């Protein structure tokens, strides 16, 4: 037993003795005659009471409560919008005045690279010529934009310090904006949309642009937005904390001030009133630890194997199997971050007698994966002075696996294997469609001899039919942290969209008889060799749902700069040489485009399916959108098929359209 506890006990005991003495004195006033108390002493005690009471009230006003902060699992998870880094850099430079030189260099470099690639694309020239055009300013009429790129050159000469001293940086942001605007115009990108949303973007850019203010949807990460360090638990019951809430701190003031004032004024009413404050002080101190461990929790799911995006109903029932009452029970069903509550509330606030039960129901939109999630329980005693926080995990598992049913055809390119299949090739052999007639070679099958020609001319000839072959296809995902982006908070991020689309594509390709495999480049390696058969398909379904690289939650660690390993290494090592690639990536950085290009030059036929998650509300988002459009053009120039997928439209329709274009 430590000293604090002992002191508390002693003080409490002494207080009790005083209380009893006073009762004794009240019952037989004669006892008091022997005590050495004068009126002065008593008045002093009264004054002291008031002072202590005020101090206690002051303490209350200055302290914070220690209550468990609960998450808002109803809300969708927060994923950044592409371009936030640029906005942050601008904000740091203009408002915080931090890292001016570094940010400026970085932004200038980035914009210059973009400008050069746009000019090269348009003028069909070399890098050197493009640089000349950029410096000459022939590409635009906007003087600020020209000045931006000129300023860059002189900055290299002058060095960063003189820039800082001369205060030129104030002019940076308008020039930057002008440059982005001019490039947009020059590159002929989505002008209408940009112009329309531009004004809006400028308005909120001041305060809201960076801070994500004005976002229509509020978001939540369970761990970040609550005071619980982790929701991962293997046990059915786990205590997180047991703490005093301090919510009664200061209640003593009611007693002390009333008693003090009562004594000073010889007012019996106030002295009586003072006892109320004392009573609550004692009430707050008598704490009983709520017996949460005796709670029995059941969670019922309307479906235990739903598909991604389906809405299921969840009913949670709690029963108090312990012998004591739980007077204040607050429960929150901490559904996984990727889930979103669409109806009802996953929360409960009640009091449970021994043996009583309560329940609540809500609807939730599920996402792929295998989940078991806890129920956060905050239980208090009667006064609320003591708070016990624990995690109760019912033994219910939800497995959400895509069905891989076929929705549409997926255009496959002409790289094939030796197996018979669906893809018409440019080579003759046995088949159905006429391809060519050639000279007879010994060993040609008799049924392909062109008998008519033999009858007419007496020469043997062989008819070739177009061979139909199966393809080997690897569906490759970009699931690096940078791919977890969405066009606005609360929308599906690019990886979710990719995996949803890919599960349809997988089904379509599989049904067309191709050998389909899965891979992802990320810090977590993901590889599933192309194959066929129902077992292969079943394993792919589980992989879609359970592989950590394809998780709806972004990987926690960023690419570690120090020990950088190219995330594509493991994929490239295993990829068979005749495999086609379906690459799913939001194309928000150059690396993804580079992956496509390198695979293409490695002899694979690449189809890029890229959900467009860029927005154009802020200058950074506009920049990212231009960069992405330029990347798409760059890839198409190299003969790589790119489906620029507007996520508001259905992918199958866009694929049909693209197929008509490619055919």
């Amino acid at each position, binding site marked *: 037993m430590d000293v604090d506890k002992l002191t508390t006990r002693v003080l409490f005991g002494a207080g009790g003795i005083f209380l009893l003495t006073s009762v004794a004195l009240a019952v037989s*006033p004669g006892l008091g005659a022997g005590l050495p108390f004068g009126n002065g002493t008593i008045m002093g005690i009264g004054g002291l*009471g008031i002072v202590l009471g005020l101090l206690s009230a002051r303490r209350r006003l200055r302290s914070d409560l220690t209550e468990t902060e609960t998450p808002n699992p109803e809300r969708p998870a927060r994923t950044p919008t592409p371009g936030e880094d640029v906005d942050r850099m601008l904000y740091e430079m203009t408002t915080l005045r931090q890292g001016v030189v570094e940010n400026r260099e970085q932004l200038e470099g980035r914009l210059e690279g973009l400008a050069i690639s746009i000019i090269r694309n348009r003028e069909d020239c070399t890098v050197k010529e493009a640089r000349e055009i950029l410096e000459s300013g022939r590409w635009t009429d906007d003087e600020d934009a020209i000045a931006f790129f000129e300023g860059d050159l002189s900055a290299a000469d002058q060095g960063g310090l003189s820039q800082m001293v001369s205060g030129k940086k104030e002019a940076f942001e308008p020039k930057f904006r002008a440059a982005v605007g001019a490039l947009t115009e020059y590159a002929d990108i989505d002008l209408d949309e940009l112009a329309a949303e531009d004004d809006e973007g400028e308005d909120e850019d001041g305060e809201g642009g960076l801070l994500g203010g004005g976002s229509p949807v509020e978001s939540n990460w369970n761990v970040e937005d609550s005071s619980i360090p982790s929701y991962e638990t293997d046990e059915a019951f786990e205590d997180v904390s047991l703490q005093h809430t301090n919510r009664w701190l200061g209640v003593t003031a009611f007693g002390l001030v*009333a008693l003090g004032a009562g004594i000073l004024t010889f007012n019996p*009413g106030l002295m*009586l009133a003072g006892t*109320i404050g004392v*009573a609550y002080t004692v009430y707050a101190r008598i704490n009983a630890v709520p017996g949460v461990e005796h709670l029995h929790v059941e969670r019922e799911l309307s479906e235990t194997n739903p598909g991604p995006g389906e809405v299921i109903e969840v009913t949670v029932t709690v029963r108090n199997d312990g012998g004591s009452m739980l007077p*204040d029970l607050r429960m929150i069903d901490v559904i996984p971050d990727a889930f979103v509550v669409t109806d009802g509330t996953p929360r409960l606030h009640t009091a449970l007698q021994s043996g009583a039960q309560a329940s609540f129901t809500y609807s939730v939109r599920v996402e792929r994966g295998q989940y078991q999630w806890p129920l956060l329980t905050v239980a208090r005693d009667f006064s609320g002075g003591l708070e016990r926080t624990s995690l109760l995990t019912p033994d219910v598992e939800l497995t959400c696996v895509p069905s891989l049913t076929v929705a549409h055809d997926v255009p496959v390119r002409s790289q094939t294997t030796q197996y018979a299949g669906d893809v018409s090739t440019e080579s003759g052999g046995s088949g159905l469609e006429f391809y060519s007639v050639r000279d007879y070679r010994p060993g040609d099958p008799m049924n392909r001899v062109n008998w008519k020609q033999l009858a007419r001319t007496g020469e043997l000839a062989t008819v070739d039919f177009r061979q139909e072959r199966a393809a080997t296809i690897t569906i490759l995902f970009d699931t690096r942290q940078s791919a977890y982006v969405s066009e606005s908070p609360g929308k599906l991020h690019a990886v979710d969209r990719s995996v949803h689309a890919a599960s349809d594509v997988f089904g379509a390709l599989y049904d067309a008889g191709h050998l389909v495999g899965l891979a992802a480049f990320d810090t977590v390696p993901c590889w599933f060799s192309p194959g066929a058969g129902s077992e292969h398909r*079943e394993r792919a379904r589980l992989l879609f749902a*359970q592989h950590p690289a394809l998780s709806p939650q972004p990987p926690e660690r960023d690419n570690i700069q120090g020990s950088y390993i190219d995330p594509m290494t493991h994929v490239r090592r295993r990829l068979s040489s005749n495999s086609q690639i379906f690459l799913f990536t939001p194309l928000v950085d150059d690396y993804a485009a580079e992956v496509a290009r390198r695979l293409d030059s490695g002899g694979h036929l690449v189809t890029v399916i890229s959900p467009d998650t860029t927005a154009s509300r802020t200058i950074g988002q506009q920049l990212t959108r231009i960069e992405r459009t330029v990347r798409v053009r760059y890839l198409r120039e190299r003969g790589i098929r790119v489906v620029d997928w507007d996520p508001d439209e259905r992918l199958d329709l866009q694929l049909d359209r693209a197929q008509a274009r490619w055919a």
Partner: protein
Amino acid sequence: MSTANTKANPSPDPEPNSNDDGANGGGGGNGNSSTETDIQDVLEAVTVTHEPARLSSGLAVGCGLLAVLTSAPATILALLIGVFGLAGLAAGQFVFQSRRAAGVGTALIFVGVVVGGVLGNSEVLVTVSTLATVLAFDLSQNAFSVGAQLSSATDTTRGEIIHAAASFFVGSVAIVVAFAIYFVVGGGQPIAALAFVLLAAIILSWSVRS
């Protein structure tokens, strides 16, 4: 929270054999519906707000009003202070949603109660208004706590009522005991006895603090 555990546990969903005719009508129909859920991506999440719980807030303001009214009869000064406090409390609960504003408001109400008592309010009224003030304090704080930890959409009635009832019970018992002592003594006013009560209160409050 998704597990990397790829234990080959084929789900009970009897799909795998439908691959042969998957491209035909049945499979296509299913596929269409699943695509539609895919593209319907605007997450119609329910909104979550954390306003102070309405019932407790209302009860707190009601208690505050009772405290102000019962402190008023002796002097208009008590009423004046109390009304200011009540305004602070109500604004803290319903307008600014600020614990601090509500707390300061309650404190002001209590100042009004003490002033009323000093200036000659009756014993019963002073006791009742003090109880009402403490209850207002407790319920207001509870309203904030419930609002923050749960949400406005949660049905919190039962929990709030139990809490309010328990607090009311404690205060009532205290009043009954205090008046019992008072009437047993019969107005003898042993100042020493009350001094001891005060000493006890101070020491008890210390023991609570440490």
